[in-house]
């Protein structure tokens, strides 16, 4: 059952996935564009500094790409079933949880395709530049972080997409309302309540989600391919 399920998911997702595969391969290469060789000690340290600051510009694109890949794979995994009212899935002799797990597994396997593209791209990028002394490349770590972030995004969107559109809209609008409402409240109350930032619930929750140890910390961690 796994192989046919994988084929079905691949057929649904492949056209959308191809740009992400290209991006996964190309992003590390773009990030190291323009880095040349090094000269004396002073030049080495300057080059290393320029190297790292230049690379910083590209950092946000890695987690964004991971989030997008996970989202696309999750949404495409349920797309046909939603369109067909789940009638086909429900007529198959397989428990609902098992069917959902098969779908999830197929999508998780497909996550490996853009991850592999990024891994290859990161290795090619690392090999294509002469790194200044004190600077090292971490293509495997970058690929693993990309994999972890993509899986988290995939799992989150998969769970949301598995429900009805009504449920998804309800969840998204509730989260949006909380974020917007919370921020508006802060703006309105700030003149009257001193140190309001300390009790800002939205900021506190976001901080908890994104800080080290939080469920989405992988998105905000160190995405450096090149580092000291």
């Amino acid at each position, binding site marked *: 059952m796994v192989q046919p399920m994988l084929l079905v998911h691949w*057929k649904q997702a492949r056209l959308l996935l191809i740009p992400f595969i290209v991006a996964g391969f190309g992003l590390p290469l773009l990030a190291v564009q323009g880095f040349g060789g090094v000269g004396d000690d002073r030049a080495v340290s300057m080059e290393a500094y320029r190297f790292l600051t230049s690379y910083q510009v590209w950092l946000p694109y890695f987690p964004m790409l991971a989030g997008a890949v996970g989202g696309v794979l999750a949404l495409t995994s349920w797309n*046909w079933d939603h369109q067909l009212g789940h*009638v*086909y899935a429900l007529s198959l*002799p*397989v428990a609902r949880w098992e069917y959902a797990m098969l779908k999830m597994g197929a999508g998780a396997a497909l996550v490996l395709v853009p991850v592999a593209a990024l891994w290859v791209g990161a290795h090619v990028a690392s090999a294509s530049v002469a790194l200044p002394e004190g600077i090292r490349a971490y293509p495997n770590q970058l690929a693993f972080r990309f994999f972890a972030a993509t899986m988290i995004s995939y799992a989150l969107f998969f769970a949301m997409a598995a429900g009805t559109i009504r449920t998804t809209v309800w969840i998204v609008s509730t989260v949006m309302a909380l974020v917007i409402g919370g921020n508006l409240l802060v703006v309105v109350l700030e003149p009257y309540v001193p140190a309001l930032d300390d009790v800002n619930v939205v900021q506190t929750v976001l901080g908890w989600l994104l800080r080290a140890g939080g469920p989405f910390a992988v998105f905000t961690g160190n995405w450096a391919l090149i580092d000291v």
Partner: protein
Amino acid sequence: MNNAIELTDVCWSADKGFELRDLTLRVPTGSIYGFLGPNGSGKTTTIRIFMGMIEADRGDVRVLDRPVPADMTSILARVGYVPERPHIYPALTVGEQIRYHSSFFRLWDRGWAEELRKRLDLDPGQKIARLSKGETGKLLLLLALAQRPALLVLDEPTEGLDPVVRRDVLAAALDYVSDTGATVFISSHLMHELERICDWVGVMDHGQVVAELPMQLFKNGIKRLRVADAPDAPKGIPFTVLSRLHENGAGSGETWIVRGWEPSMRHYFDSVGATLRDVIDLDLEESFVELLRSSRPPTSGSR
């Protein structure tokens, strides 16, 4: 096991006000059961309930002697289903869809699936999105049959198909049934089709089963009688009067639509001083219409 499908006092209601009320249905094992009813009468909802797709609010549902929805996985392994609307993935090819479907069924007969594919003239490389309505119908039937089901559930399987394809589809289903003795539950608007192939019939209207009986009884038991001088409130009638209509023109002639009629019942009219002028056979479609008319509130012109 006497019944392949058993629904007892099933109730179900939707948000929009439609409901099934105390639905009881018995589909004898080995029968070809025709399920009739106007649009919106609840046929597809009934099918979805015993297929485990929606859960009844109340009542008992059993398919192939197993409870629904508790044993749904093992039930569905023995049920071939052709839904009202195509439900398969449009981007797959015919061959890919067959392989995908077969991976879920342990009893899948690969050789027979291939034989059916050739017989139904389906190209394995053809994309499902590009299949005609007839080809899609054939593919759905192939998928349902090649899993060797004990129960075949066909929800409007020939709707919109041309007569040639319709004949191919029904012939394939009937060949399977004659070889295996499987039960067929077929919901259709095409009365003449059902009249030809079914041995049991169930009629549904407004969320209720209004009749369920052998086809022969259904066809022969409902008659149109032309009666003269009938009393206003006759007593001791040995058959069921579904409706009484005054005939146009002069005289005291009436048309009675009756159920459970037998020739020996002619004497009844003599006993009440009436005259039976004629007994007219109804075909399935006329019987169906009269049955529905009688189960609904009376309209002007009827008593």
